[in-house]
């Protein structure tokens, strides 16, 4: 990476979230793709950022349910026990 490259790395960093989400303009996407083809550090940052987000999304896709104990407590505190479905 030359000094010039580093300033480009820095200027492209702010677009990476949109790039990974697919919400960045085509022009900037091309710029990032051209840059990461040449800059190994930035390629790694983009790939591992994408992986980081996808791992959290994968965890978040798992269903979340509260425990039966907490549910009973909640219904009781909110005075809704009569309407608690099994």
């Amino acid at each position: 990476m030359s000094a010039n490259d580093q300033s480009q790395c820095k200027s492209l960093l702010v677009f990476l979230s949109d790039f990974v989400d697919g919400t960045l303009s085509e022009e900037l996407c091309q710029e990032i793709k051209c840059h990461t083809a040449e800059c190994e550090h930035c390629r790694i940052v983009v790939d591992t950022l994408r992986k980081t987000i996808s791992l959290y999304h994968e965890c978040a896709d798992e269903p979340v349910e509260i425990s039966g104990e907490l549910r009973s407590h909640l219904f009781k505190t909110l005075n809704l026990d009569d309407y608690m479905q099994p």
Partner: protein
Amino acid sequence: MSESKADISIEALRLGDRREFARLVDVYSGPLFRLALKMLGNAPDAEDALQNTFIKAFQHVDKFEGRSSLSTWLYRIASNEALMLLRKRRPETNFSDVTPEVEDDQNLDPVQFTDWCCLPEEEYLSAEGRIAMDRAVEHLPETLRIVFVLRDLEDLSIQETSQVLGLSETAVKTRLLRARLRLREELSSYYGDRLNRRSKE
């Protein structure tokens, strides 16, 4: 609990229909509890935040004007409850425990350059991997953590996240980027280490 968020009748809630309140609790308990847990880091506090969220929702539903969706409104109450509990906790926190909430962009610069994307799939979401992921979220300053939790864990849009937090969409995007880059650094450290250990085995 197969009912969906869209099935809840706001009109019935406004009229004080307790059966509908019970359905609301069942539909939203899971996601709101997760939000509180990720923000507060422990179950007892998250349970308190969840309970207070529903109490406030029931108290104020007659004032709900429908300018945002019911879901956004509930996330706003839950986020405020979690942030309030965090702030109450602060006087007891040691100074060294407080994560500095630096807003300067220099902090964005990546320092970890290990490519850990080639690890075997079972490494990523192992029990140990999940602990590392949770810890990384806990290490985020709360202003970044709440944005990350709403957007990336609860799957709210940028617009919905901005409505929940009363921030501009630009501010939400900036904080999301900062949160994601910090998480990447921490996961790079953990999974990079896993990669090294595997190569030595």
